[in-house]
């Protein structure tokens, strides 16, 4: 049950989610009876089903064992998630242009050998493009640039 074994980990994940959902829904939502199905019934069934589905992967001994987890690419992952978070943080207080610039720069830094000048051009072009489409064409209520203080 080596910790990097992908098969075992996926089984744990599935069963884990299944157990969590089943227990949470059993505790919080009434199951009802079969002729008056309550809100908890379906989630609990699905959760229990997930538990069961995960078990073969946890206990199996067939030859797919030994496949280890592929490498977690931390830099791109962090860059993408941080960039999107920046967009979420900036869009309402500061507007579209700061949010999109932040996203482009931060996610752009996710790859080795990024070029600040390229990113600057890209963010300018994207700012124009998205303002035309989202604010101009689709009339989504978004500020281009504001200062909240």
């Amino acid at each position, binding site marked *: 049950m080596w910790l990097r074994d*992908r098969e075992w980990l*996926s089984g744990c*994940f*599935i069963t884990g989610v*299944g157990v969590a*959902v089943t227990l*949470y*829904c059993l505790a919080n*939502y*009434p199951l009802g*009876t079969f*002729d*008056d*199905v309550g*809100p908890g019934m*379906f*989630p609990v069934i*699905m*959760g229990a*089903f997930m538990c069961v*589905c995960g078990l*073969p992967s946890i206990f199996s001994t*067939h*030859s*797919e064992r030994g496949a280890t*987890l592929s490498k*977690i*690419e931390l*830099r*791109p*992952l962090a*860059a*993408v*998630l941080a*960039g*999107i*978070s920046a*967009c*979420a*943080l900036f*869009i*309402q207080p500061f507007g579209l242009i700061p949010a*999109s610039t932040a*996203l482009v720069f931060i*996610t*752009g830094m*996710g*790859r*080795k*050998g*990024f070029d600040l000048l*390229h*990113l600057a051009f*890209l963010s300018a072009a*994207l700012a124009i493009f*998205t303002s035309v*489409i989202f604010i101009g064409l*689709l009339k*989504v209520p*978004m500020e281009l640039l504001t200062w909240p203080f």
Partner: protein
Amino acid sequence: MDTVITNLTIGLESALTPETLLFCFIGVFLGTLLGVLPGIGSLISLSLLFPFTFHLSPTSAIVMLAGIYYGTAYGGSIASILLGLPGTPANVAVVEDGYAMARKGRAGIALFLTAIGSFIGGSVGIILMMVASPAIAGIALKFAAPEYFGLMLLGLVAASTMSSGPPVKALAMVAFGIILGLVGLDTNSGTARLIFNNLELYDGISVVIIAMGLFGIAEIVGSISRLSSTSVFSGRITFRSMIPTRQDWRRSAGAIARGAGIGSFFGTLPGTGGAIAAFMSHLVERRVSKNPEEFGDGAIEGVVGPETANNAADQTAFIPTMTLGIPGSASMAIILGVLIIHGITPGPRLVSEHPEVFWGLVMSFWIGNLMLLVLNIPLIGLWVRLLSVPYKFLYPSVLLCCCLGVYSLNSSTFEIWMIVLLGMLGYVLRLLELQAAPLILGFVLGPLMEEHFRRALLVSRGSFKIFVERPISAGLLALCAILLIFALLQSRRRKRELPQPTLKL
């Protein structure tokens, strides 16, 4: 025969006016453009663009909306094939094979054949609309809660057997998707489920967020380092590479025919639609194919069949809307709303009282489909060049459009945070080699399935016998069981054939 010709003439008269043609073109063009942008699908485009139609005549308004509807469907296909991002849940069925084809440089062929397949699928749907609307409405009425439940279960089983991985894990993903779909307010009991005190989740998680987060983010994170200095496909894109080979045509012909049939069937049932039709088509193509191991790696049937089915279903979805006044999907509901605003009440009396509207619509659907084909085939070269954009420019653009598209759903940043969360989940799934496609189908069908399940049990007063006593329902459940057993047997056979790990001496 006489009446059909009279009807066609009436229809053509209203459809071929310059005004109608113009708005059809605008609708198709705008729709395709918006559909390509990740994060924007038919529902968002229709919601955001339909105020423009208030000032138009009813026929023009509907024609423009129908154009937007088809355009976004096709735009979604473009995004799935070129970027690996499903534009709508229905596109999930083609993302794997379509994107694989793009990576091999065959994107032009994929786009070309899907355009043709979609046109044929739409045409078959329209013919059915013209000829068989009342009969189809009659069959659709035979489907009640137990049948719908069986149908959706079948769709989910189809989705789990469609993935190349072990079916047990796919089924687990389906269940996970259903659970995610149940997040939000339960209309039957008034309880808000799994929202963990976030009121924004009252309406549930939006499907756009699931698609973008689970597919888009994970795919992009995985590709950033791999494609760092190049593009998705860096070979030369010649005109010749966009023309399908004879073998491609031969394989697609069957897929298109089957897809059109499957899609026409599923589209007429209100509440099911493009997604389930596309997944079923993919399943059928896989079972029928002479080379099933190609699926997942660029099998043309796996792209053309589902897209044809999707379009046929989108087309026949108009049948229950127009003849019964029951919208088949949220997008149909918007179109229905627009019709009512313009004073046209769809229903059984529409055909007899306003024949020029009904037949005008039918004809303009055809013209819309044709226009989609004509407009997009020359543009395929342009779209495919998108692939040669260096990935370092492509991926921030895609991410930005996703975020903004999602933000425009509710003007709330909560949705963007949800993408972060789901992106992490999507990446975890990717690391664990758990398939996301069955999850999204479970997500879309889960709540509906629960509703039908409850309703069926309510009618039968708690007895499960209702599912097996009704013939159609029993048949569907039997089919599910057969597919499942088949899939489990196949996977066990596959496991036995894998080389056993040998001891190193």
